């Protein structure tokens, strides 16, 4: 038996014999169980103590696969046979864990068929805890070590283990919840499977109705969402292109201000733009009042609905389109444009016949991104939706509203998933590898041609107006926090900040008495825990994708990037459905928030990792390997230190995204673990705009600080190791 297997055997034994088998009611980090009846109290007992007391006897078969590798020298003689033994142990252990976990729940047998087969079971079990977690890990790595032993990926235990770990995590935390959700969509409220229930719900008029075309009634939410998303996709792509052209082809000094503006949506909670729109165009908004005064019109609620959502989403997602398109526009090789010019094409002809066609895949990409973002957006429609219902908010209301219809929520979520996955698939399928642009920009000199005049002036004016508008909106947010009651009483005040973030001194020292502090600290804690885990997961995945070759790599990549296309509301619903009951009981804990952030933001880490890893010369890895280092050591000693900028970027990004997320969070928060964003939404629902806006400004400032500090470190570490890395490549 080698060292890896020995280590996992010990971990498995610790899980089975020492740690509490079931989940702890008092929380992840609690230590109460150590003093409260451990190891004999059945709530806290390890599996071994449970079965010796004659309880939960279905846990006893797990010992066999756990100890099987110890016995393997008796009958397995070749390395291949020993690997097979490990695979058998791993698979049977995992299978039994799944069977007993899914089969026996809070009320005995989970399936009627089992009751009929074995008779009623007057015992029950909770979700698995530390003990079960450790044992699961042991079986998983038995399996991967065995697979490696049979020669997969050149027998590399670390690589196969990493692949196995990521597949298991993605399987449990992305595919399992989605499958649970699908299955709840085909059940009625009593839990009986019925396809007719699903079809009845799915093809309901509320989702697919076309009443708006024939006049009279409203259209279904699916059409609403689709229409909005297509509009947003087009308009953000157009605006993004305008900005990208202005930044690179206007002869202006580099558009550094424009680039700085792209940070804004990353650090802005998604619904904050919606709030600002209300401050401007709402019933008592500044612009509404101004126009009403001048033209003596009655102020209306026109902004609530499609116009408002559209404006807010355009403000939110144009910077994303800009980021995509600036790469595309810069990537068009100047020598091709110069070639066109030497062939007697004028600027307009060059632009029309060469530059624009070369950008086409990039434009399609930006459109699909805008489409997906709009579909998934939850905050803005929630704040500004009015009567214009879209899928993402309807899912929420199906769950929290009076109807509390989980099946309906699942059906709506499926409709939403169909749209986003189709767009995601289209993006990967048609555009994945189709890029005319030079990726590195190497080996191409020359300057970009300027825009033709008839393109330049419209671009300038659109860009100027939009920039002004964006700045106004953000100005509103900062200013709005200091106004007593917007539109009614415009006196300036610190009241909202004091209510939310008041601090006082008492006998025990500093006292955070403001109402927002609780959710603020929780948010920092959860985001701070999620960020390093997300970054690790993302970079490990990126490393496997860029540097390793293994069967099924394409499917692996698709699976890991998939969560990008799953809207947060869908994740939220599916997590509630999947993790509310054993075998994995997580709702109401902080852990479920951390996990949802990890898997929502993992694609970001993967992309950052892939981008920076493709910059590293592959011979660095190979040099380390030929010098006798194994893959684990190569990864930790060579790759990770060189990836420091990417690690920092992934850390910041996942931290900030966790701070600003709302869509999945709103389903998963609990009284104990409330997050800043859901607190703010709560204030908005109470029409308490002052505090909501003050809190939002606070978040923006905090995140701006975080981004700035991290940027400072990135630049520093970049100039230290990054420079030498680059110079090593250039020779």
């Amino acid at each position, binding site marked *: 038996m080698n060292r890896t297997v020995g280590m996992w055997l010990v971990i498995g034994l610790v899980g089975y014999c020492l740690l509490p088998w079931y989940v702890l009611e008092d929380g992840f980090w609690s230590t109460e169980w150590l003093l409260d009846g451990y190891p004999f109290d059945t709530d806290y007992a390890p599996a071994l103590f449970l079965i010796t007391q004659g309880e939960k006897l279905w846990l006893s078969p797990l010992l066999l696969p756990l100890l099987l590798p110890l016995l393997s020298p008796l009958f397995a003689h070749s390395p291949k046979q020993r690997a097979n033994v490990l695979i058998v142990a791993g698979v049977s252990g995992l299978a039994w864990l799944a069977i007993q976990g899914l089969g026996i729940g809070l009320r005995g047998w989970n399936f009627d068929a089992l009751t009929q087969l074995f008779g009623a079971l007057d015992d029950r079990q909770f979700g698995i805890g530390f003990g079960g977690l450790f044992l699961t890990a042991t079986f998983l790595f038995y399996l991967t070590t065995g697979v490696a032993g049979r020669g997969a990926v050149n027998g590399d235990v670390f690589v196969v283990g990493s692949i196995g770990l990521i597949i298991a995590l993605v399987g449990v935390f992305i595919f399992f919840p989605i499958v649970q959700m699908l299955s709840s969509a085909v059940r009625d409220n009593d839990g009986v499977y019925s396809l007719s229930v699903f079809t009845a719900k799915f093809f309901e008029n509320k989702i697919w109705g076309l009443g708006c075309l024939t006049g009279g009634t409203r259209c279904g939410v699916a059409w609403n969402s689709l229409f909005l998303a297509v509009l947003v996709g087009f308009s953000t792509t157009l605006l993004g292109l305008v900005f990208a052209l202005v930044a690179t082809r206007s002869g202006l000094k580099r558009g550094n201000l424009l680039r700085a503006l792209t940070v804004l949506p990353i650090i802005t909670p998604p619904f904050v733009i919606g709030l600002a729109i209300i401050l401007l165009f709402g019933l008592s908004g500044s612009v509404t009042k101004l126009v009403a005064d001048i033209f003596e019109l009655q102020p209306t609620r026109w902004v609530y609905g499609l116009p408002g959502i559209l404006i807010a989403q355009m403000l939110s997602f144009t910077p994303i389109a800009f980021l995509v398109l600036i790469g595309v526009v810069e990537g068009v090789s100047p020598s091709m444009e110069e070639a066109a010019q030497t062939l007697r094409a004028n600027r307009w002809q060059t632009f029309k016949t060469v530059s624009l066609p070369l950008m086409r895949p990039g434009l399609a990409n930006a459109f699909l991104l805008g489409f997906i973002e709009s579909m998934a957006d939850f905050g803005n429609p929630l704040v500004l939706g009015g009567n214009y219902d879209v899928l993402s908010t309807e899912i929420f209301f199906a769950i929290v509203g009076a109807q509390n219809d989980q099946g309906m929520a699942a059906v709506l979520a499926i409709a939403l998933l169909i749209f986003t996955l189709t767009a995601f698939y289209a993006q990967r399928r048609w555009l994945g590898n189709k890029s005319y642009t030079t990726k590195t920009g190497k080996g191409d000199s020359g300057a970009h041609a300027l825009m033709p005049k008839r393109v330049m002036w419209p671009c300038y004016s659109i860009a100027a107006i939009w920039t002004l508008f964006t700045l106004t909106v953000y100005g509103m947010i900062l200013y709005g926090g200091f106004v007593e009651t917007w539109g009614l009483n415009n006196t300036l005040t610190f009241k909202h900040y004091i209510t939310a973030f008041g601090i006082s001194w008492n006998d025990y020292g500093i006292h955070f008495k403001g109402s927002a502090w609780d959710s603020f600290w929780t948010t920092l804690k959860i985001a701070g825990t999620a960020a390093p885990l997300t970054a690790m997961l993302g970079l490990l995945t990126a490393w496997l994708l860029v540097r390793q070759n293994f069967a099924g790599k394409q499917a692996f990549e698709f699976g890991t990037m998939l969560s990008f296309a799953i809207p947060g509301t869908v994740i939220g619903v599916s997590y509630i459905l999947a993790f509310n009951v054993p075998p994995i009981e997580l709702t109401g804990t902080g852990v479920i928030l951390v996990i949802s952030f990890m898997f929502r933001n993992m694609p970001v880490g993967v992309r950052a990792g892939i981008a920076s890893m493709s910059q590293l010369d592959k011979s660095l890895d190979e*040099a380390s390997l*030929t010098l006798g280092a194994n893959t684990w050591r190569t990864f930790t000693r060579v790759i990770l230190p060189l990836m420091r900028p990417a690690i920092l970027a992934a850390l910041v990004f996942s931290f900030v995204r966790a701070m600003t997320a709302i869509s999945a969070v709103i389903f998963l928060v609990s009284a104990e673990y409330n997050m800043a964003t859901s607190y703010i939404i709560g204030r908005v629902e109470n029409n308490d705009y002052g505090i909501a806006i003050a809190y939002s400004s606070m978040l923006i400032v905090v995140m701006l600080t975080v981004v700035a500090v991290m940027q400072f470190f990135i630049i520093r570490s970049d100039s230290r190791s990054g420079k030498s890395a680059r110079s090593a490549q250039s020779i």
Partner: protein
Amino acid sequence: MTIQQQVSKAAPVEFKQVTKVYGRDVTAVDEVSLRVEAGELVTLLGPSGCGKTTTLRMIAGLEMATEGQILIGDTDVTKLPATDRDVSMVFQSYALFPHMSVLENVSYGLRIGKMKKAEILERTERGLEIVGLSGYGSRLPSELSGGQQQRVAVARALVLEPQVLLFDEPLSNLDAKLRRQVREDIRDIQTKLGLTVVYVTHDQEEALAVSDRIIVMNDAKIAQIGTPRELYDAPVDEFVADFIGEANLFDGVIDSVNGNTAMASVNGISFTALARELSVGPSRIAIRPGRILLSAAGSPNTMAGKIAKATYAGSHMEYKVSTDVAELFVVSDVESGFSEGEVVSVGFAEKGPVLLPGSTLSTTAIG
């Protein structure tokens, strides 16, 4: 670390019918068998895409053979990954770890084992001394010149005292003047320490200068194995003749064979050459540009030619000469001074023409 220890660690490498297939049907190396003796420097030479780098990477364990067997010393390493092989490699890009100092780079492989710190340091210093970089230990790779980085890469591979040391086009990133110096240094270190070295290059001059033996590869197969002299003087076919140095190729006739010697003739010139197991009849003939002699018209045992182009190249003259056989490329000394359009006699130097056994007869002339 004594030199003797290193000599005793150097091991032979053997390929038995090794094939490497990428994907489904791209054969990079096709049933190659070869043997590199311990303490020998062997070059893998060939045009790009011929499979030489894949062969090298299979020795390193960075690629796994699809079929066949690879032996290092007496051990079958076919299935062993790079980590577990006692082989070091110097990469084309050097692959120095940019975040580690020179000392950390060179000691990287040593620090993996359970060696005492003092010994690691001693061996690292010793390695840097061998490549002439003592005192550079604390620098970062980015603070060194290209040639120095190259030597650090060599030191890093050397200190592990590998059974086989591999070089993947180590000179391609250096400028022309430095190349000569560095390749001599590599050869010196190799002979002094008695290392088994496999060296990949596409530069035939470099290969001729450093190797004990050269393996010429073409199209995933071995074209010829031999000492530099053998390859240059007795290429086995047109590809080798043309790839190692330049050659004029044309058809001739073998008139008689007597043991090892053959009498052959081309367009009225008769000459003797090594028979190379050929028999009487038509044959392909190769001759180096420098072994063709030009003289005033009407000399004996020559054929008539006309100078189509004369180029002054500093140290020598280059001529293109039209003859009835082919257009010949000729190099002669500057004094010869023929001018374009002049009619000359074309003759062969003693031992100049070579009969090519491996070539099928064709009518196209190369060179």
